[in-house]
């Protein structure tokens, strides 16, 4: 246990040490102060001709257009991969619903996979299709965060930046350089990188073993850095090719959170008040540590149903890999669900019930515990608006954030986003039960089956992408509705926060006085965390009581299903 906690502590220290300078660098990228690729940037944007400063509305239109086009391209590649080149295994084109689901999934940075990569995707689909969107969906989220930060910082301005510029800079200065470095490191540490599709081996016992292979390292780097999480192989980062060593596991976990954490500092720098970013960092950190602690405790306790047959020292090892151990898997599970990454290095379906519930809650809170690149920050800002509103009333002033009045318009937009998770998870999940498609897709009987369903719709709406993988999502119904949940969970948050940023940008900030309560102090951080937890808990407690909580009490009572 000591060794476990030491690994976790080391992770936290290195993560923050990397995120702070990266965050400050990113702020310079978005203010245009990083110019080492200026000629490339200028040529590109010149050719694109996307105009100058945009209002939030125009920015949103650009963002939507670009995502729609990316969706169309990916959909076409997936459906027609059989007639396209680079298909060494000769895979078929995808069905319409799987192609729809997958295209939506990668464009929305969810990277939910209703399929197994090595049995479905050609190398062209993996590279040109999926890897491209791994970059572009991440860049979209990052551009959004930059625009939102500008709006929040703005003093009576009508514009929030230029989408094409932000997008281009995100790729050129942040995602691509980091991915290049990380991919080479990954390759050096043993991840395959080849255009071959598979290798045949003759095992020591004389059997034939076909080993799927491909350009893994390059996809893995951006998969983690861009909080994408879509694996090359079915089991994602549990696969020894995607994650051959404890050190690759460790680097992957750092890559999962480094940009989301860095955005707290980017934000602080861009709005000109470091402490505000620090407060968000602290609130997210409290939630992450609490989630990790609960997950670890549940998994470390192991499964009492197996206690008679299993040495208790290692905790629950079903679905985990020996080289990472319990801690390497638990820490990963906490970060990947918190960060809206969704890659897994252990099978979440086999987590003990309460550990599975923490993973779900991490997503149900709205993917704001650092969250996805860019969108984690902006999602958190929506909660900040709600919290500021309540807190502001309690100190007897019209609520203010960064000196700007939070009025009916902002509250309306933020309150609207409170409906997204309940609709995506409860309404669409309930609908699946009502029409019977849930029952036919789950693997396990009893309350765990319900958990599989809730997890699937939670993951989709939260744009996470991890799964209780026993759930068979590759049906027309689930592919369609999970796809819709992903769209809702992506653009349902993006547009309101962009509108709020647009509205706040036009306001004149009032200088702080003793009468304005500070949004960087401990009291506010506590209140923010409490608001997030209470909203999340109140929304999902009934469903969770029938899923993981019911399973936990059944497990303790010695019941199997």
């Amino acid at each position: 246990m000591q060794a476990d906690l030491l690994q976790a502590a080391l992770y936290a220290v290195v993560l923050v040490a990397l995120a702070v300078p990266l965050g400050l660098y990113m702020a310079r990228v978005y203010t245009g102060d990083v110019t080492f690729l200026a000629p490339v940037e200028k040529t590109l944007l010149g050719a694109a001709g996307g105009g100058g400063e945009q209002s939030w509305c125009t920015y949103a239109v650009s963002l939507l257009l670009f995502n729609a086009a990316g969706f169309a391209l990916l959909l076409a590649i997936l459906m027609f991969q059989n007639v396209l080149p680079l298909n060494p295994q000769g895979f078929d084109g995808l069905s319409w619903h799987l192609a729809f689901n997958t295209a939506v999934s990668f464009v929305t940075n969810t990277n939910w996979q209703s399929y197994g990569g090595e049995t479905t995707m050609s190398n062209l689909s993996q590279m040109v299709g999926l890897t491209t969107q791994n970059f572009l969906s991440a860049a979209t989220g990052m551009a959004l965060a930059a625009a939102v930060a500008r709006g929040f910082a703005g003093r009576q301005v009508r514009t929030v930046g230029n989408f094409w510029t932000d997008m281009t800079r995100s790729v050129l200065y942040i995602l691509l350089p980091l991915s290049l470095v990380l991919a080479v490191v990954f390759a050096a540490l043993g991840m395959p990188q080849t255009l071959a599709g598979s290798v045949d081996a003759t095992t020591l016992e004389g059997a034939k073993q076909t080993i799927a292979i491909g350009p893994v390292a390059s996809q893995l780097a951006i998969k983690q850095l861009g909080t994408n999480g879509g694996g090359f192989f079915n089991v994602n980062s549990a696969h020894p090719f995607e994650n051959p060593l404890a050190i690759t596991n460790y680097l992957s976990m750092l890559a999962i959170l480094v940009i989301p954490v860095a955005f707290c500092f980017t934000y602080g720098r861009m709005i000109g008040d470091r402490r505000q970013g620090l407060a968000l960092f602290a609130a997210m950190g409290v939630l992450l540590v609490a989630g990790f602690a609960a997950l670890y405790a549940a998994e470390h306790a192991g499964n009492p149903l197996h206690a008679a047959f299993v040495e208790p020292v290692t905790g629950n090892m079903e679905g985990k890999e020996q080289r990472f151990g319990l801690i390497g898997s638990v820490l990963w599970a906490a970060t990947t669900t918190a960060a809206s990454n969704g890659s897994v290095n252990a099978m979440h379906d086999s987590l003990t019930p309460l550990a599975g519930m923490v993973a779900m809650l991490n997503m149900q809170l709205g993917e704001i515990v650092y969250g996805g690149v860019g969108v984690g920050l902006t999602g958190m800002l929506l909660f900040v608006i709600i919290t500021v509103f309540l807190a502001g009333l309690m100190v007897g002033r019209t609520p203010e954030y960064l000196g700007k009045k939070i009025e009916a318009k902002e509250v309306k937009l933020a309150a609207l986003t409170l409906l997204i998770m309940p609709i995506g998870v409860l309404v669409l999940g309930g609908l699946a039960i009502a029409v019977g498609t849930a029952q036919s897709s789950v693997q396990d009987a009893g309350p765990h089956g319900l958990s599989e369903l809730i997890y699937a719709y939670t993951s989709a709406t939260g744009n996470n992408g991890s799964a209780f993988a026993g759930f068979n999502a590759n049906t027309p119904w689930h592919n369609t509705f999970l796809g819709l949940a992903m769209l809702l969970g992506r653009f349902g948050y993006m547009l309101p926060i962009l509108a709020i940023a647009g509205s706040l940008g036009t306001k004149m900030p009032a200088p702080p006085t003793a009468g304005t309560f500070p949004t960087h102090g401990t009291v506010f951080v506590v209140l923010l965390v409490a608001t997030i937890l209470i909203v999340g808990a109140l929304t999902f407690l009934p469903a969770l009581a029938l899923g993981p909580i019911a399973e936990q009490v059944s497990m303790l009572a010695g019941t199997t299903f």
Partner: protein
Amino acid sequence: MSQIRATLVLLAVFTLLTGIAYPLAITGIAEAVFPAKAKGSLVEVNGTVVGSRLIGQSFTSDRYFHGRPSATSGTDPNDPSKTVEQPYNAAASTGSNLAPTSKSLAEAVAARAQALGPGRQPADLVTASGSGLDPHISPAGAYAQVERVATARKLAPAAVRTLVDSRVEGREFGILGEPRVNVLELNLALDKLPPGGAGS
């Protein structure tokens, strides 16, 4: 209209840049600098590829150390329309995904444990790995099999145990991950042990 142009231009450029140039560049670098790793860390014995050191393989013989239970499956060689259990199918990775309260999981764990002997067994030997391709077992899991392997190979248990000792990998950098034994490499070393070993 300028928006549509920007969309098309940037989507095309970024597809070329991130979808083609980037993976090809990494492939080029990897194949030039780390060719063995780039191709999957394959292990050859006498010119034959016997597997990848990163990918576990199925061992059923008592003469070999066994890896962890694997939940992968594959098409039935006799009837392609059916799927059958096929441990360590490296073309279709998967975990069991069984629930903690799953009856079949509880039964499987019990059966695996009882097959290994009475009482509690190392967790890695009775639970399925996440990938179904886990190349490692815990040192405890290896030591638990020493007796059986030594008997099957008519070797001194002490010699096999010494071999295992030499094959235990500690935590990386002394802190990361868990101590472990690579099953394929252990078995390859086992095959190289002189018959009769250090005299029984």
